[in-house]
């Protein structure tokens, strides 16, 4: 792991973290909290899956876009189910595993 100075982490925050959060918020309509989670998840994926090939910056933007789209699909599906079944406790659905997505992963 690269040891990072506070200055380097500040630059990381300014040049990578915030632009990705803004993309998730202003382009994809996520709340700030959801945007932060999505970006951190993208960083986790980067550690595990990013190869040395290609452009890492565009890879990250692409993954954030994909994660935002997945997030919106989940939100849409929850709203649809809630409307269909008259569910009030949507929070339960929030924490429930998504069987459809798990099956396709």
């Amino acid at each position, binding site marked *: *792991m*690269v*040891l*990072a100075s506070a*200055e*380097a*982490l500040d*630059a*990381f*925050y*300014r*040049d*990578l*973290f*915030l*632009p990705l*959060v*803004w*993309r998730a*918020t*202003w*382009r*994809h309509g996520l*709340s*700030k*909290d959801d*945007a*932060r989670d999505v970006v*951190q998840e993208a*960083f*986790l*994926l*980067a*550690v595990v*899956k*990013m190869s040395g090939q*290609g*452009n*890492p*910056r*565009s*890879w*990250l*933007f*692409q*993954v954030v*876009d*994909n994660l935002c*789209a997945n997030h*919106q699909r989940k939100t849409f599906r929850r709203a649809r189910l809630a409307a269909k079944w008259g569910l009030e406790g949507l929070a339960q659905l929030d924490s429930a595993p998504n069987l459809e997505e798990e099956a*396709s*992963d």
Partner: protein
Amino acid sequence: MPDPISLIPAWLEATHDREVPTGLDVDEALRRAVLLRDQLRAGQIQAGEFEITEKSIETLHAFAALLTEQIKIDAETALADGRLIFDFVEAIAWTGTPFGGLGEFLARIAFLCWRSARLAGEPAEEQRWLRMYESVGKRAASLEAAEAILATPIEQRGDRVFEPYLEEVEQLFSIRILLWRLCETEPARVRDEANFFYRHLRERRSPLDVSGEQAHYLGEFALIAGGTCRLPSRREEARRWFELAEASFTPAHNASAHVARLAYQRLALALEERDLDLVFQRGPELSDRLMRFGLQEDALKCRFLEAHALKETDRLSDAKSVFQEIRDVAGAQGLDRLCGMASENLFQIHAFLGEVEEAMAEARKATVVLRALSNRVALAKLQAGVGYLLRGQGRMQEATAAFREAQRQFSAIQMTADVAATHLVLADLLLEAGQLAQAEWEVRAALPVIAELKLVPEGIAALALLRDSLRRRQIDRQALRDLHEHFGDKK
């Protein structure tokens, strides 16, 4: 400073047990964006007064989000606001890449202006913002992501995490730009890609978020696919794609300008099929129509077809004048591609007229432009043209070498009809040199391709005569030349 990407593990380590600040509250950012919009409309703020800070940049992103919503309500107002914010931000001293960088934001605004112009029915503005996007967005994430998508083979695009992200229309917009750019350098690949994106869009369960946008992109990808089928002589396929493009464009906003672009592609197909009367009949009217839409480049391309038809009908002096006009106008407008292609044709005409020095001078000009544009199709045609010129000069060995190089280039871009045509020319040259066995080999290599592509309905008699002479192992040179004539290349 280490590469930010290499800092990801350290970042995750440093932030795993704390909430990282995410900038302005959404409502506050929107409030600031509305204030900025009102100040811009009233001319009350100058770029010099705008300081680059975390908060001010987020305000710009909120502005873009406002613009996205405004487009759905009133595209003309959105276009006017888009112009204001673009000019304003372009003048800000925002260097380097802090907060995503200037290019990223300007590309977003250029895209939103393009979208507004399309919905507002302003094709010239649509074209202008498309070019602007290409110019400012060279390193924008959407274009980079589009490049990454196209670099992934189609069959490997199924992984859930890495699958192409096509929910956001700017991504499709970038892909469309890249495909048009690659049309002449990698036509076969672009055809497959356009087919992929057309099917992907058609099978979507939910429509794109702005009215008529899905139909527009379906039309655009069908037009790209048809245009690339036209090049390697897959004409029936091209016609089918053009029908799909028409069916898609028609219900979309601002359809008439795009239907006129489609009419240009159909006219180009007519030229390739040597239906020159149709080009003479419809070319001038279509060119005028495209000019009325403010689509100057497309109008010039239409003039290009007319010039080609003049060349094909041996009205070389008229053709030369039109090509010179196109070269000069295109050069003045920075339309390098058209300028290079006009030069390429001027080279051919000078060559036909025996104006060797002028021809070689024009070839050199054309080569510089075409290489810069990586226009492999035009470069291969130019190379073949040099072969014809050398042959006309009686420099047979050099001509043979030039044709072999042209054939290699045609083959590399899968222009099978031109590969076959070059086989016929080489056969003729080899007959001239008394190399009968090699000439026979060249003819045998060409015939299956000609038969498969059904290129020359009017040349069937020549084809039969040539086949018959081949069976007798005594090549009918006139039949060879007649058959080659039907490929549209002057000798």
